[in-house]
């Protein structure tokens, strides 16, 4: 089986994002509607992290961005691990 270059680049990028990126909430914008948790493909309770003001630190988080994209109030965003914005 030949290696698809684009696929390899995609996988490496994804691995890099998984290793260095995380989803971070901006708690004052959050109204706990739960759309983030509802749309998490792994069933993580993203909303609870937003309430606690903590980054989504669960190792199962795929940083797939469903919660970031679907939040109607722009509460969630990606950040490099160690950064707060």
């Amino acid at each position, binding site marked *: 089986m030949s290696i698809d270059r684009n696929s390899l680049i995609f996988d490496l990028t994804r691995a890099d994002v998984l290793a260095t990126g995380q989803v971070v909430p*901006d*708690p*004052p*914008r*959050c*109204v*706990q*509607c*739960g*759309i983030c*948790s*509802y749309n998490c493909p792994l069933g993580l309770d993203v*909303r*609870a992290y937003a*309430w606690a003001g903590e980054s989504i630190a669960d190792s199962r988080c795929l940083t797939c961005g469903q919660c970031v994209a679907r939040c*109607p*109030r*722009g*509460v969630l*965003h990606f950040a490099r691990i160690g*950064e*707060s*914005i």
Partner: protein
Amino acid sequence: MSTDYVIVGSGVAGIAAAETLRAHVPGATITLISEDPAGFYSRPGLAYYLTGVIPDKQLFPQSAEALRALNLKWIQARVERIDTQACCLVLADKRRVPYDRLLLATGARAAAPDFPGGELDGVVTLDTYDDARRLVQRARRGTHAVVVGGGITAVELAEGLHARGCHVHYLLRGARYWANLLDAEESELIEGRLRADGIEIHYHTRIRQAVGTGGRLTAVETESGTQIPCKILAVAIGTRPRLELARTAGLTTDRGILADQFLKTNVPNIFAAGDVAQVYDPLTGQATLDTLWPTARAHGVVAAMNMAGTPMIYQRTVAANVTLLAGLPTTIIGVLGGANDDDLVAIARGNSETWLATVPTWVVVERHDVNRIRLMLGDRAINGALIIGDQTLARPIQRLIDAQADITAIRADLLAPGADVLALLHRFWTEWEAAHGPVS
């Protein structure tokens, strides 16, 4: 003997207070009394349930186990009155609940219809989880519904009913939507989106009365004599703080319960938080109402710290809200000025009285199709902003307003005709952030 803490209200202010008390006085007896059988849920989230984005069970942020872990004595009951002499609450069933420290977080309720016929079956408001559930049951496909009012809730009702298949008429008393906060172009942007969805907007239309037979709503009659047949009339003309308990107990009230910077009322050991609290601001010398979720949560935390004996001043932040208006993300920050809104008889939900303060301001607008930024420039800083659509700059602008960042370096450029406001702001923000650090 341990201190008895009692909280009235299970909204975000009440729950934040309960969590804070439990964390700081672990062994205390904390009683939470709520009239709402649904308990703690995301009230702003009701809009997303109405539009079908989430199911109703998703509205509850805390699991039963998480609430149990707070070890609250939860009483579902209506409080009839406060006996401030005996320091106890009298419930509707005549039970008495003693308190050492009491927090009133009773919230606000929708203002009653200001026209005859408001008692008819089919005339609804949106306050609670149960209200939303009942509305969804009523909103069958093809049902004609009328929405009257302004602010965020009115549009949420119109969109929710439309999403449920109703034919929606939205009645505006004036020439445009949310006239005391949005400018004319912003109103048109929202109205255009609502119209494109199929919502019929009626301008300069006041309701003379709701008409019904056998106690059931059948139509709305306007002041021009037109009848609009409908089975649902959703009314969102503002909210009023629930003040009955406070007033009968002799607490000082104005539009809300007057509270100082520690969220204390004028009666010893009684505190107020959330939508019901009208909190003093030493900077302006005025006490203002907010109907914002994050503000209510912050009130609850500060009130609880003071109840627990750890003095804490409520530090105001610049009032801000983020909402979806006709599907467009909209951030409202700081002071935007404004006059009266014919569609509202009282403060709308998700609102702040501070938004309508009047200060000398120069207005800068950047328009791109549905994306729009309006900046309210003071002499040295940005006083307020309204950002519709792309929210990339919302957080930076909010930070600049919060910090009252000195923008004199770009002020003239921002005000210049044809200025590239986005580029100017972005460059300024990048430099400012590098100098002041990221958001903590």
